[in-house]
Each structure stands twice: as structure tokens, then as C-alpha cells.
């Protein structure tokens, strides 16, 4: 699906109109491009530069709440989507970032948003994205003896790389 630049600003159904226009204006100023919209939510493609500052402003000034961060392994690298909910305005902004395969790391937001600690650990475990600045990057969902460098949700994952030890050894 090719991203489309919005020409006319259509407010997604069910969302507070003024808030949405203000938010959209801020996002477009940061270089975001709206890909699609549905009832009470919209998906934006956001450039990597200045993303953390943008996120911080959305959460602190605009009153957003980071619901979670999801990720998927695509051909060009790893895509992370930050789902930011604006509960009072009834709107969810899904901010999509592409981390090119050669440089998949993203500055950690845990120092100023402690609730993101587990989210970033899980993404690191399963997709292999680094989060420099994370205070405690340990295994979360995978077992402690999981080998390094093997990421289950990556396209090239092979189960043979991560065989469990024999039943006597555990």
C-alpha cells in the first residue's frame, strides 16, 4: 500500500475536531505523513530524526499516553509503531518508524517514561532492536539461557539456532 499525502484534512470519525487539527499540524511540522485513518485513529509515517523529542512533546504537552510499541520485520529493516492514545480527545495516533536493517537501534525512552522498560526489553528480545540508554536490558520473554543474536520474530530465524539443552542439563 503506497502512502498517500493528505490533501484535505479529514478529521477521523469520533474524534474531537479542534484537538485533532492541532495535533495533525504538529505532526506534519515534524515531517509526519498520514498514511490512513479510521474511526478515532490514524497511522502516520514519521522520520527518525527528532522522533523522541516529538514523542516527548506528545506525551507531556498534548497529554498523550503511550499504550504500547509494536514492531515487525519488513524487507527494508524493522518497523516500529508507537501507539499513543489521547483519551480525552478520543484519538489514537499510531506513529510508524522504519529502522533500516543496518542500523536498527532506537534511543530508549525508558529514562523519562519508566513504563516503557518492559516494552523495549520485549522488542529487543524478539526483534533484536537495540535501545541505547535503557537502564536494564535483560531477557524478558525469552529464557535466560537463550543464545545471543537469535531473534525469533525475524524473518531469518531458524529454530535449530536455539535448541533447548537436553532435559538432564536444565
Amino acid at each position, binding site marked *: 500500500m503506497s502512502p498517500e499525502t493528505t490533501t484535505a484534512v479529514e478529521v477521523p470519525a469520533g474524534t474531537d475536531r479542534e484537538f485533532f487539527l492541532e495535533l495533525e499540524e504538529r505532526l506534519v511540522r515534524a515531517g509526519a505523513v498520514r498514511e490512513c485513518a479510521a474511526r478515532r485513529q490514524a497511522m502516520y509515517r514519521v522520520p527518525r530524526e527528532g522522533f523522541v523529542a516529538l514523542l516527548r512533546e506528545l506525551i507531556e504537552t498534548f497529554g498523550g499516553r503511550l499504550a504500547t510499541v509494536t514492531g515487525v520485520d519488513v524487507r527494508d529493516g524493522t518497523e516500529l509503531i508507537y501507539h499513543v492514545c489521547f483519551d480525552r480527545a478520543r484519538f489514537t495516533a499510531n506513529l510508524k518508524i522504519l529502522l533500516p536493517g543496518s542500523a536498527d537501534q532506537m534511543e530508549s525512552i525508558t529514562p523519562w517514561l519508566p513504563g516503557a522498560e518492559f516494552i523495549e526489553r520485549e522488542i529487543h528480545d524478539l526483534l533484536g532492536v537495540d535501545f541505547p540508554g535503557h537502564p536494564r536490558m535483560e531477557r524478558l520473554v525469552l*529464557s535466560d539461557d537463550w543464545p545471543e543474536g537469535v531473534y525469533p520474530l525475524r524473518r531469518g530465524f531458524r529454530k535449530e539456532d536455539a535448541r533447548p539443552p537436553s532435559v538432564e542439563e*536444565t
Partner: protein
Amino acid sequence: MSWRLWTLRKSLFVYHANVGACNNCDIEIVELLTPAYDVERFGIVLVGSPRHADALLVTGVCTRQAEPRLKELYRATAKPCVVVCVGSCALAQGVFADGYHVGHPVDEVIRSVDPEAIIAYVPGCPPKPEAMILGVVKVWQKLAELGRARPAPAVQPAVGVSTT
């Protein structure tokens, strides 16, 4: 029938261990205690510590993280203690059999600690409470068949059993 076996049939303390289940089997196990099935009238009580348990009800595929812990749990129980694998996941890992997060099947893990452990299998996803009661009854029949309550096996408690 020895008096130990007879008292085990009359009073069974059960410890429930979830080693990676979706909680469906856990809900059905707790349902056994509700007025609909009321297993307390058979003397079956849910206890809070594995040391008090006569039966270990294991639910869930044994995930890689849970495997050493399940072994410690079994070693911690006071023998004679039987193991009841509840649900398809505990039997042979069900649909998760080849997953990257699963360890070995529950009965392999238990047998690596104690090759002579008595293990009952209750299939279902989740099993009906009647099936679980039938599983316990079969354990009693098996114990009677063996003719004796199992004495303490030659299993040394692991060094890691102390808590720091």
C-alpha cells in the same frame, strides 16, 4: 492395602503448578472446589506449599524458563507424591509442540528427576472437571495395583533448594 495407601485415598492434598498454561486448565481446576463438583468431600484440598502436597497438578507446556523450576518443585514435594498432567499442553505440548519457547514435555522433565514417578494424564483443552476426578481415581487404582505407597526415592534435593 497398607494404611499409608488407605489414608492417601481418603485425604489428598493437591498443589497446583502452572508452568506455562493459558489459564484455562487452571480455571477448571479451581472449579473442582466450587459447589458444582466439590472435591473437598473426598478429602481433596488445595494447599499453598509443595511440601504439603500429595499430588502435583501440572498445567501448561513446560516453557524453557519453567523447566528447572518444575524440577525443583518436584524435588520439593514430600514423597509419596504423584504428578497429574492436566490438559493437552501438559500431556504432549498440544499445538505448541515445536515452538521456540517450549522446553521438554512435562513427563520427560519429571522423569529426568525421578524415573519412577507416578504420572497421570488428563487430556482435554481444557479437561472437564469430571475428567480430572477420573484422573485422580485412576491414580488411586494404580497405587493400589502397585500394592504399596511409594517410599521416598533416592533423589537428593538440589543445592539450590535453599533460598537466598
